[in-house]
Structures are given as structure tokens and as C-alpha cells.
């Protein structure tokens, strides 16, 4: 099957077939293409492995001022020897004849035992037919020549002399065809197109990766028999805290951890029976003055548990599995591991036969379905559950155990005042953490940066 080429490629290939090694400048001349067209054409051919570009560096050398003088008059030491060829001469006379080069010439001649001195005269001992460097001088002459062409043994003797040799570094690119390309037949016209060439990148529109994780988690719990409930993000403290046995003077309720909505209080927070029983439970167990105005203060929910507990209090089911999924808020400094607003899933199982082992079983099954099999359970503390556990999952990338969902059985101090009589298993945790494991992110803020380069490149199925 013949390959299809762009006009530029065709011209370059044809030219290289005639003249196998060319610089880009040569190609411009031989193809009549612009420097930019040549550059692009060479890049395309390189990608297709049809052309090779050898970048080489050559050093051109020419003679400097002293070199040229020696080329014309002979090397200083040659001139010295020539002067002595017929007769010995006085040092002063030689100095006058040779001028400034006498010193170095004399030094060399002595060192090599070409001359000697007797009384005040210098006489010739030896007359070498060719001195080191003479060959090179002759070869270079008045031209510029590549260093490669020079006798490498003869060059050093004059390379070190001042202003004898000038070196010029020249970088050259040389384009040639690969073996594959040499057999290519260029046809002048065809309707075929280059089906093998690279094409432009287009971006798919897509759902947000975090939404994908949320959907996946939602799907898992629905298939485990849970029904999704949705509740408000702004809640009276009553449902976020009081109903969950968190005393009004508990540090978690302070401004520095919870977002209170400026100047907003709820008029209606629950039935009078709910309010009475919860306040009694607080007074009895926590021994303080329970203030209904404190319970009215509106907060941004710190967990979705307020949604499930309210649902249970309103419906009082004997047997149910429900979950709530949504944004929760904490007054934290934003960092690579903390957001002020993140997603949480929180679910409950209510039933006369619900046990802690069932709760652990649901967790294990959930993790299995999202691909996490190395898990263990540790005890922990939550104000509204007893016993309370947390799941630790092993993160292969970080090579350590990380904490995921918390869980427990709702305390009777939570359920009784709300008229819930059957045991309630509850669990929940942040979704971003799971999504971070999934997408291999180390910075949780990435999910909310809406950086299009990331949104367009994150692999959909992880």
C-alpha cells in the first residue's frame, strides 16, 4: 500500500532522492519551498520515521595575523635557519634582521639543537627539511578549511602560538532519508489521504470527575437497598447538633469550626415534643442550661447526618435503609487536604435485627465495589454513636493506612427523644477522599478549580 504525502513532503523526498544529504538551506533551494515549509515537512517526515536529521558540529579553521605572516614569510624559526644557512652570524645582527620573533625562534632552534653558539656567533648545526607546523600552514594558506581535513599531528605545534590559528564553530543540520523512505515512490496525484498521520486533538464534553464518583457511590448504595433522601444545606443547629446529642457548649459548635449564618435563626425547628425531649436529654446527661435560641441558630450543615436523623424522626420507620449525599461545610483553612465545602455520603440502616457486624459488612461490601479490599476497623469517638468505629483502608500509592468512613450505632440519647425505637446503624464520610484515591490526586482543591486542561484530560473510567 502506498503512503500518502503532503505536497511539501513529496518535494522534500524527491529532492533527497537525487541528493541524499542536504542541509535545510540546500533543500530550500532545491525544492523552492519556504524555510517554514521545509521545517514543517522535515518534522512530519521525522514523525513518520522517513527522514533523519543529523545535527553536526564542524570546526573551520583559518590563519590569523601571525599565521598569515608565517605563511608568506616562513615560520620565524625557518627564517632564522635560512639566515644561518650559509654563514654563522652575530646575535645582534640576527636580532636586527628578525625583530620581535627572534627570541622565540632562537629558543626553539636551541631546544631542538638546530643551532649552537660559539664565542659571540651563532652557527647552524642542523637544517631540517620540514619544520613542525609548516605542512599545516601550507595546507590552510589563505583559505578556511574544516578541522577534520587537517593533519592532526602537525596542527598542535602552531595551534598554541598566538594569533596563528582562528577556529570557527559551525553547526549544521543534514537531512537524509531513512532506508524505508528510499523505496517510496512519489506519485503525483491521488484521491487517497494520509490515514496514518497524526490528527488534531478534540476534547469531549464530560461530566465532572467528582460527579462521576458521586454517581458511582450513589449507584452502589441504591443497589445495596438504600433509598436516597435529600435535605437542606442550611439547618437549624437543632438538627445539626442538638438532635445528635452534641451539647450546646461543645467545642465543635463554636464559630471556629462551624459556619453560622449571620443573623439567621429558624422560627420552627421541630415539634414541641421533639424539642422538649431533646432538651431534657441534654439537661440530664450534660448538666447545663439548654437554650432554645442556641438551637434555632442557622448553620451550614457540618454533616449530612442531620438530614437522615430528621428523616427518621419524621417517618419513624421500623425497617429502612436510607442515605443522603451532598455538600457539607467546615470552617477550616483551605489547604491541599482541607476544603470548607465538600461532599459527604451518610447512610443509616434501621431494623430490629441490625447489628454492628452488619454495619461492618455493608462497609466492606461498599469498599469492595469501589475496588478497595484491604480494610480494617478501629474504634473511634463520635458524640452521637456508640459503639463508634472508623474504617482504615490501605493506600498502595502512599503505602499507608488512611481513614475513610466513620460509623456506629446511634446512641439511645439520640433515638429515644425522637421516638425511634429500633437500632439505627449509621455511617458516613467524605467523597473527595475517595475520589482523590481514584484519580490519584494529592490536592483536594483540584476538584473545584475547574481547570479545563484537567477536566479535559482526566480519564473517565478509573
Amino acid at each position, binding site marked *: 500500500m502506498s503512503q500518502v504525502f503532503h505536497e511539501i513532503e513529496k518535494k522534500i523526498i524527491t529532492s533527497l532522492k537525487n541528493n541524499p544529504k542536504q542541509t535545510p538551506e540546500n533543500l530550500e533551494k532545491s525544492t523552492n519551498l519556504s524555510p517554514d515549509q521545509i521545517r514543517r515537512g522535515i518534522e512530519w517526515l521525522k514523525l513518520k520515521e522517513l527522514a533523519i536529521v543529523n545535527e553536526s558540529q564542524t570546526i573551520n579553521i583559518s590563519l590569523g595575523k601571525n599565521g598569515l605572516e608565517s605563511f608568506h614569510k616562513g615560520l620565524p624559526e625557518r627564517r632564522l635557519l635560512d639566515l644561518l644557512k650559509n654563514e654563522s652570524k652575530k646575535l645582534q645582527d640576527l636580532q636586527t634582521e628578525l625583530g620581535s620573533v627572534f627570541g622565540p625562534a632562537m629558543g626553539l632552534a636551541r631546544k631542538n639543537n638546530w643551532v649552537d653558539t660559539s664565542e659571540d656567533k651563532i652557527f647552524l648545526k642542523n637544517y631540517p627539511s620540514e619544520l613542525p607546523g609548516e605542512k599545516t600552514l601550507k595546507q590552510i594558506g589563505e583559505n578556511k578549511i574544516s578541522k577534520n581535513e587537517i593533519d592532526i599531528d602537525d596542527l598542535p605545534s602552531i595551534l598554541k602560538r598566538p594569533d596563528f590559528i582562528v577556529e570557527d564553530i559551525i553547526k549544521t543540520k543534514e537531512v537524509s532519508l531513512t532506508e524505508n523512505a528510499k523505496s517510496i515512490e512519489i506519485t503525483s496525484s491521488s484521491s487517497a489521504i494520509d490515514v496514518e498521520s497524526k490528527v488534531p486533538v478534540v476534547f469531549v*464534553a*464530560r*461530566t*465532572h470527575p*467528582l*460527579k462521576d464518583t458521586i454517581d458511582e457511590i*450513589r449507584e452502589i448504595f*441504591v443497589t*445495596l*437497598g438504600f*433509598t*436516597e433522601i435529600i435535605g*437542606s*444545606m*442550611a439547618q437549624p443547629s437543632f438538627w445539626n447538633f442538638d438532635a445528635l446529642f452534641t451539647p450546646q*457548649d461543645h*467545642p465543635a459548635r463554636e464559630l*471556629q469550626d462551624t*459556619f*453560622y*449564618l*449571620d443573623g*439567621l435563626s*429558624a422560627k420552627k425547628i421541630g415539634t414541641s415534643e421533639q424539642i422538649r425531649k431533646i432538651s431534657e436529654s441534654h439537661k440530664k446527661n450534660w*448538666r*447545663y442550661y439548654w437554650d432554645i435560641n442556641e438551637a434555632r441558630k*442557622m448553620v451550614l450543615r457540618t454533616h449530612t447526618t442531620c438530614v437522615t436523623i430528621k428523616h427518621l424522626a419524621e417517618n419513624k420507620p421500623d*425497617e*429502612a435503609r436510607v442515605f443522603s449525599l451532598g455538600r457539607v*461545610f467546615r*470552617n*477550616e483553612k483551605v489547604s491541599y487536604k482541607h*476544603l*470548607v*465545602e465538600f461532599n459527604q455520603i451518610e447512610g443509616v440502616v434501621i431494623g430490629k*435485627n441490625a*447489628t*454492628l*457486624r*452488619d454495619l461492618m*459488612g455493608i*462497609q466492606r*461490601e461498599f469498599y469492595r465495589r469501589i475496588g478497595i479490599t484491604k480494610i480494617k*476497623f*478501629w*474504634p*473511634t*469517638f463520635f458524640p452521637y454513636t*456508640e*459503639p*463508634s468505629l472508623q474504617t*482504615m483502608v490501605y493506600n498502595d500509592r502512599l503505602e499507608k493506612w488512611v481513614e475513610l468512613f466513620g460509623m456506629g*450505632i446511634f*446512641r*439511645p440519647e439520640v433515638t429515644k427523644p425522637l421516638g425511634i425505637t429500633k437500632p439505627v446503624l449509621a455511617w458516613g464520610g467524605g467523597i473527595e477522599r475517595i475520589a482523590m484515591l481514584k484519580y490519584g490526586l494529592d490536592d483536594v482543591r483540584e476538584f473545584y*478549580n*475547574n*481547570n*479545563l*486542561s484537567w477536566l479535559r484530560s482526566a480519564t473517565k473510567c478509573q
Partner: protein
Amino acid sequence: MPVVELSYSRLQKLLGKVSKKQISDSLPFLGLDIESEDKDLVRVEYSPNRPDYSTDLGIALGLQGLFGIKTGAIKLNIKKSNDYVIHVEQSVSKIRSFVTGIIAKNGRIDDTMIKQLMAMQEDLHFGIGRKRKKSSIGIHDLDKVSFPLRYTTTKRDHRFVPLNSDKELTISEILDNTDVGQDYGAILGNSPLVPLILDSKKQTISFPPIINAAITTVTTKTRNLFVEVTGINKDDAEDMLSVVATILQTAGFTLVSTKISGSKNTSPKLEPKKILINSVLINQMLGLNLTNSQIISSLKKSRLDATLKGKNIVCSIPSYRFDIFGPMDLVEEVTLGYGIQNLEPILSPSQTLGQTNPISIKLKSLSLIMIGLGYTEALNSSLTSKRVLYEMTNREPINMISVLDSKSQEHTILRDSILPGLLENLSRNIHTSYPQKLFETGTIFSQGNPINEITSFAGISAHQDSTFTEIKSILQSALKTGFDLDIETKTFSHPIFEEGRTASISVHGKTIGIIGEINSKTIENYKIRVPVVGFEISLSGLILD
């Protein structure tokens, strides 16, 4: 969560033949999260409901139980004595009604012990003391104190040398000029009288809940201690005292009782409380079939006492375990004693059928339609800033909903619209290739009764040739394909959009949102170099209930 630093070698001394690895493997099973480890030192986080874990002595008691080295409850042996009397005067009843205390004799205190006692005191103050408001603690060198003591009140010009000072200060000076005074002075309010403990030589011993006197400072030379706790509730004060008493006894001190009387105060008993449980509840909750003796041995491993009485188990809980309210707390104690690692998770078949919320289903459909139309989903915080919501888009803030004391300036106001966030997203992507088409569905907030939460839907398109027609086509198709709704647009004006290129959107005659070309000023504010068109509609009341 509070953190305590432990030394493995010290724990090994307290525990006997137990390896470092056994200890580090077991700490999590006491509910202690290892935060960091460095050779012999390990820092663990403990729950604020277990202040006894604020010292290595307390943690050693827990580990002894888990390892089976020593099990059962820690009994406080308090020697009866009439030597240590505290009289409470009526005047304290309106300020800080209760005082309680205990004597601890013949102990040794090294630097580590002082450090741990200080840390425990701070954690008790912060946690169950509710930043000293509910109860606060003072630990004194007993030999510097002359009994009987008086718990009384004084005026703010009363002078004494407070802890860590070398000169006399008045109460007012302490409250105004010292760190503790500034931090906790508010507890005393504006009352002209403040609480004070004086000894029989009229020396000031303590100015609760602010500071002790320098004279009773505890050093490594101290052998005998006087611990006092004051508070607004007697039970809370005694709870706090019992933690300290337990730790001091564990540290080798002999406890001696105090005698307290006056103004509804009585001497502390620090006696265990009894809770009845039965195996049915425990097995029902855990999904196990434990025998009574297994339950009793598990409770003992959790350092509680338990005996069988008929069908019930009588559990005796030492007074420092005031985190135990009732039988469900004992279920947890059994779980910990039995070992969570010994509980095998089970997956019982669900008795209920699961269902996705209809709102989620509709929002999912809408997002799939938008993706079909080439729009990428964005996600922004609903708690955002005045800058994004109003300043950059030239909108006037009305009835903003702000949060109090946010630690982040970028998150102070609940959004009342999604579009400003999407525009901000464009500004962060000006070096990425166009066209850029984004949509978002999410909650927006407005003041109501007290707050209305509405699900809103917005989309934007940014590229060289974006037009009003394009964005109207998109919205029209999305609502028609998704929900068989037809939209109408009517000339309108709105600060986000360009005058003359803005319309309100209505469905069945009801206005649901707004659409148009984004105002050039906003585009300039965000340094976006291409025209942008967009819309935002409310889904609540349209496709969502």
C-alpha cells in the same frame, strides 16, 4: 482532637514484658490514632471524652487491660481524714458555686510527670471544663498550704503573687495584664466579686478559674499534693477530680480525703456507679453469641468491673469513666474488650429496595443532555466571595447571606447565582483552547423563612463567534429534549448581561431565568478575550418539586 506524646520505653516500664510493636499495634484499639512516630516517641490523638488518656499512666491502664496484664476496674483507695477541711462561703454561690478536692501524699514527681500533669490539666480545662467555664482545676504543693481552707470571694483589688510571677498583682491586674487573665477573665463577667481560696494563714492559694498562687507551685521536690476543682456544677467538678485522682494514685500517690461543707457543698465520694446490662442487648447489637462470662471478661479488659446477678450483669464503672452514660456505652466497652478485629463483618440480604432520589435522576438526565450539546460540567463552591458574586459581575448585593468568622476570605457568602462562578472559571482558563462551554447545576440561596434553597442551572459558551442565538438554541434544545418544555424570551436588562442583548426566559408564562451576552465590563474584569454568552434558570418549580 487533643494529642499526647508518649515514650515507648516509659510505657514498657509501666506494662512489663511487652514489645514496642505490640504497643504500637494496640494503641489504635484503645481509640488512639497514631499521629507520628520518632524512635522512642509516639504522638497519639485521643478522644476528648477520654481525658484519662491525656497521660501515659492512663493509657498504660488501658493497655494493661487489652494485654490482659491487669484487668478490672481501678479502685480509688481514699484514706479518710478530718485534717483537710474546706469551708465554702455563701458568697460564691452566685459566681462559681462548687469546690471539691483531694490530697495525694508521698509521691514522686519528675519533669515528665509535671509536663504530663500540666497537659492533662489543660485538656481537662478545654474539654469537660468547657474552657474552664464549667470546671477548672488547681494542683498545689500541699506542704505550703495550711488547712482549714476557705472558698470565698474577694474584691478586685485583692493582691497576691500569682503563679509564674515574682510580684504581687491585684485581681484586676491579673485579669488585664496576664495571658490567662485575658483568655479566661470573661468567665467571671462584670461581677465586682471573684472567687478565691484562702488558707488558715490568710494566704491566697488560688484564684479560680484563672490562676494559682505562686507560693504553692509544684516542683520536682514536691512530695505531697493538694488538688482542688471549682465549678458551676458539683458533678462536673467531681468528674474532673476523679480523673486526676485516678492518675495520681496510678503514679504512686496515696489519696487522702478532704472534708468540704457549706453553701450546698459536700465532700466528694468518687464512688463507682452501677449500670445493669444483659447479654441479650449486647449480642443483639454486636451480632454475636457471647456468653455472660465472655462479656464479663471483655468488660474487665476494658478496665471495668462486672459480676453476674441473675440474668443480668452488674457493671461497676469507676468515677473517672464519666463518658459512660448507659448500657449502649457498655456495648462499646464489650466490643473493645472483645476486640474489633475479632468481629467478622457480615452482609445480610437487604430487607428494603433501594431508590435513587427523583431529583438526582432528573439532574443526571439534564447533565447528560448538556454533555450531548458539548458542554462540560463544572463544580463550584456554594460558599463563595463578594468579589466573585458581586464585584466582578457588577451586581448589587441585596440580602446577602454571610457566614460568621470564616477562616477563608474566598468563602464568606452563600451564592445566590451560579453564573458568576462559571465566569470566574473562564477567567482561570484563558490560556486553554477555545471554545469553552461549561454548565453547572447546584443550590443557590436566598433569605426566606429563614432560607430558601433553590436548584439552579447555568451554562456559558465562550469563543470567538459565540452569539445570543447559539445560547438560546442550546437552552431551547436542552429543555425540549429533556423535559418537553418550550421557552420564550423577552427583552430584559440585567447587570451581568449586555444591554439590548439580554432576555428573560419563561416557560408557560412563568419567568424562570435569564439569558444573554455577558456584559463587556465583566469580560474585561476577568480579562477574558472572547465574547461569552450564558443563561441561568431555576429548576425548582420547573422540573423539580
